[in-house]
């Protein structure tokens, strides 16, 4: 079921606010009892050890007090939550076999297109069960496993018995215990020795039912010398009552492997997002968490990117504006919605015989000297930079000229484009409370950890996020970069831990936290714990908090930008450390959403 261009525009504001009327095949009663746990295990026909694991976790959940630090969790009512809902009888192998209504939801989220176009495999979770899963055939052939965790437990019991619950034991914290007791769904990934998965694996999670708790459990085992990038995206419809998302993600990076895990979170305003994510990095392994606690980039990105559904022929001037490979088309799609008609400053970038016009904050893929390509806004591009502008290729051409083209209605594409996104209301509707501290335990000599965390806290939100790096082995390295933006009374808290245990000699570690506050109603806190127990550690930490510099705004305005554009550009620059780590289609959307958010920010 494809949405037409018109429908996308028409549905703008409510695109992600719909609630499907689904008759669930099975669901547990509200509230959590020992019976609920046993019932879930019985539904799933699990091995005995898993039931025991669940019950052990359940006991711990009851015994464990609520955390008294961090965000306010006092409004969570465990008795109102439905812990298990099953919408479909089995996990489907082919998209066509997925029930129509669920399919429609995911079509709206753009998942099949995502799979076809960019990704190695996609898993979609609808409430408690994974409804659809596929991996590109060639990956299956070389032994890459990407399936629902329940199915994984059935098909790969030996891997589960060896690794499940070893990285995040149920006793770790109250919400890990809850997840361990009632977990359902999630992704299981296994990458065999020496296999490099060339494109990202991607999963979506979606809470549909009101008061549904979602407790997915993801287990990623990357064998020696293997390499994988896993992307997780989320979205939730808006409800008046509170939903709880308490996921557990366990990553095991075996010697010499490389794992990158990217999260782009967007739960609606009601959701308590309490996630335990942890990786074990063994000898010479590298683990990277790229964690964004902001708007949803995935759903809307992909919907809007559905070039199949958006007739390019209907667009007049768009192709002048973007010119970035296959993604070009979706940008053009948005230009048609020029009804907004807001004049904006536009720059012309001339490169490789083409002229591309774009607003100053529009990101281009730029290569400078020998550095890796990075996303830079037009305003940062200078003649001589190499930019990628050719359709369908990543050829770089030097910029021969840059011109300010004045405020032009014609090039209103940012507004037009973003308006499609404004529509989805995604950026505005982040979760109410997020407590998430992706952590990496460096267990083997020479392991490397890299964590990039971005949080945007808007109205009514508390993003209590951060990162943990625990050095348990010699010659290990870690880097934590945290960027937060708070606005409209939102509160962004960085809470982190860096620990160098006895025996972990020759460690190099750094922590950088930067916070930007956009108004004086908002709040920013920074709480880093740094515990060093080896004398040859080299640790450095820096943090800054500030508002947008009026000097910078003034400067940019003197160059012809509006105040909004100037602020937006500065925020994008601030978040660039994150943006440049994203696959390019995400980077574009991310910047777009930031801009969108900024437009709402200023009167």
């Amino acid at each position, binding site marked *: 079921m494809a949405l037409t261009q018109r429908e996308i525009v028409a549905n703008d504001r409510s695109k992600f606010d719909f609630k499907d009327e689904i008759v669930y095949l099975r669901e547990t009663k509200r509230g959590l009892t020992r019976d609920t746990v046993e019932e879930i295990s019985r539904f799933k026909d699990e091995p005995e050890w898993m039931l025991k694991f669940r019950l052990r976790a359940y006991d711990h959940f009851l015994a464990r007090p609520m955390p008294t630090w961090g965000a306010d969790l006092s409004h969570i009512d465990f008795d109102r939550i439905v812990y298990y809902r099953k919408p479909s009888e089995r996990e489907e192998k082919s998209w066509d076999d997925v029930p129509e209504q669920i399919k429609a939801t995911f079509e709206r989220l753009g998942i099949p297109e995502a799979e076809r176009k960019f990704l190695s495999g996609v898993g979609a979770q609808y409430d408690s069960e994974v409804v659809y899963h596929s991996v590109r055939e060639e990956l299956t052939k070389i032994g890459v496993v990407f399936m629902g965790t329940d199915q994984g437990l059935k098909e790969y019991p030996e891997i589960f018995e060896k690794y499940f619950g070893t990285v995040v034991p149920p006793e770790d914290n109250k919400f890990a215990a809850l997840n361990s007791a009632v977990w359902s769904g999630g992704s299981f990934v296994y990458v065999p020795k020496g296999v490099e998965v060339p494109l990202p694996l991607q999963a979506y999670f979606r809470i549909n039912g009101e008061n549904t708790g979602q407790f997915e459990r993801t287990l990623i085992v990357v064998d020696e010398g293997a390499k994988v990038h896993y992307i997780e995206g989320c979205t939730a419809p808006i409800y008046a009552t509170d939903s709880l998302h308490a996921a557990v993600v366990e990553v095991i990076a075996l010697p010499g492997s490389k794992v990158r895990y990217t999260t782009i979170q967007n739960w609606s305003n009601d959701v308590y997002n309490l996630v335990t994510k942890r990786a074990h990095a063994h000898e010479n392994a590298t683990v990277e968490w790229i964690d964004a606690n902001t708007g949803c980039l995935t759903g809307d990105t992909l919907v809007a990117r559905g070039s199949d559904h958006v007739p390019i022929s209907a667009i007049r001037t768009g192709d002048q504006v973007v010119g970035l490979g296959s993604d070009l088309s979706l940008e053009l799609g948005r230009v048609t919605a020029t009804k907004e008609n807001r004049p904006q400053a536009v720059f012309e970038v001339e490169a490789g015989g083409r002229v591309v016009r774009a607003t100053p904050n529009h990101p281009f893929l730029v290569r400078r000297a020998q550095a890796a390509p990075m996303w830079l806004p037009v305003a940062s591009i200078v003649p001589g930079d190499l930019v990628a502008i050719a359709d369908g290729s990543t050829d770089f051409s030097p910029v021969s000229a840059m011109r300010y083209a004045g405020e032009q209605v014609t090039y209103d594409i940012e507004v037009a484009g973003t308006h499609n996104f404004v529509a989805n209301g995604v950026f505005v509707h982040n979760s109410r409370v997020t407590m998430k501290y992706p952590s990496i335990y460096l267990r083997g000599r020479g392991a490397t950890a890299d964590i990039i965390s971005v949080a945007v806290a808007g109205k009514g939100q508390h993003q209590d996020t951060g990162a943990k790096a625990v050095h348990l082995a010699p010659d290990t390295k870690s880097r934590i970069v945290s960027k937060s933006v708070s606005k409209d009374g939102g509160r962004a808290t960085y809470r982190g831990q860096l620990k160098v245990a006895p025996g972990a000699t020759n460690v190099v570690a750094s922590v950088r936290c930067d916070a930007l506050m956009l108004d004086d109603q908002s709040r920013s*806190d920074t709480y880093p714990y740094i515990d*060093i127990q080896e004398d040859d550690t080299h640790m450095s930490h*820096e943090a*800054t908090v500030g508002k947008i510099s009026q000097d910078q705004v003034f400067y940019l305005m003197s160059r012809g930008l509006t105040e909004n554009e100037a602020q937006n550009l500065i925020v994008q620059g601030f978040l660039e450390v994150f943006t440049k780590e994203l696959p390019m289609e995400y980077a574009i959307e991310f910047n777009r959403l930031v801009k969108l958010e900024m437009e709402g920010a200023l009167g």
Partner: protein
Amino acid sequence: MTERIDLPGLGFATEDLVRSLSRDLEEPDWLLEQRLAALARYAESPIERNRLWTTYVDLRPVRFAEIEPWGGVDSVAAPTADPPPGAAALLHVRDDAVVERALSAEARDAGVFLGTFSEVLRERPDLAGELLAGESPLPADDKFGQLTVALHALGVVVHVPQGVSLAAPIVLRWSVGAAGRGLFARTLVSLGRDAHARILEEQAEAAPADGAQRLYAGTTEVRLGDGATLDLAAEQDFGPGTVSFLNRAASVGRDATLRWALASVGGDLVKSRIDNDLVGRGASVQQVEIGFGGGSQLFDLSSYTRHLAPDTTGDLLSKGVFQDRARGYMKGLIAIDRLATGTDSFLGEFGMLLSRKARSVTIPSLEIDQPDVRRAAHSSSVGPIDEGQVFYAMSRGLPRDVARKHIVLGFLEPVVARIPLPEAQERLRALLDRKWDAGREAGPAASAA
């Protein structure tokens, strides 16, 4: 009724003791009430109010049960006119007596007051009303500060009147270390509008390593009037077996400046907390603090700086060097109130670990409610001695160990350089020097053990 939380093994914090101290010192009822209120706050406060710090410092090794607190200090030396060379005034406390007191003619003529609470109550009702009866800058929810207020056996007041500038420092010397005894003391410092003064606190005693437990709990409660400037330096070199709880709190007025330079070297366990309340527009605090730990010493150095008014400045630096099995906790919080626009604050916590068993914990935190800041930043690093610097020094002819020593002492020098009296400065240098040497001697033995 809130549950009473005592420090582990501490049984003497009772109403009876509070009443008997107050009686011994012939205090007015309102002072007794103040003590009892503090006792109640002590009893109901957790060991650490700040949830960020809770798990860190274990006080169980402190044998409170073996401590007998001193009763009210009634032996107070009359002031002479001969402070030590270079000093404007001296007050020397040894255990439960003020053994020496001196005030230069210049200071006396300018109206500087240096005396005990009893004397203030008798001789200066104006100051008593303002300082003793007025609200203390000590945080009401800090267990240790409140314990000291409840149980103080001695109160000292230093007052420099409006407009008076004293170039020479006022020396407050605390020689405490009697086996099995604990001294609780309060010091109130007040500078009138546009007054300028320097204070040197010397906390030391050569106690023998006899296994006995000793305790010193002291407050320094500072009020700076508008435009006042205070340099407050401290050298702490308590003997073995000494546990100290040091609460320093300041309320800094409009355009006033407070500069702390604090060095911790001695004692088994030092729990220090500094509270800087920048209450007047343009108030400023500069704080440099060092800890040099060896053996199994534990330094817990916390600092809270609250920007409560616009255009306030906080520049806070802590440095720790830890050898043998020493542990250091440098915990700092900068809070910027919504009303405080245009602030500038920096918090730096830097550690140097000289042995594999040493440990450094740094928690530099920020709580920001007002984004209109000129700067709000913190920085922290922990590392060994920079081998590049060692190499450079060796290339200039220094033996390796001497090179290392110079680098460590250089790391701590910023505080040493701010100690006001040249002799005191030299004494601290020598102290750090000896500490380094002791670490070298203890080093191999400690690792063998």
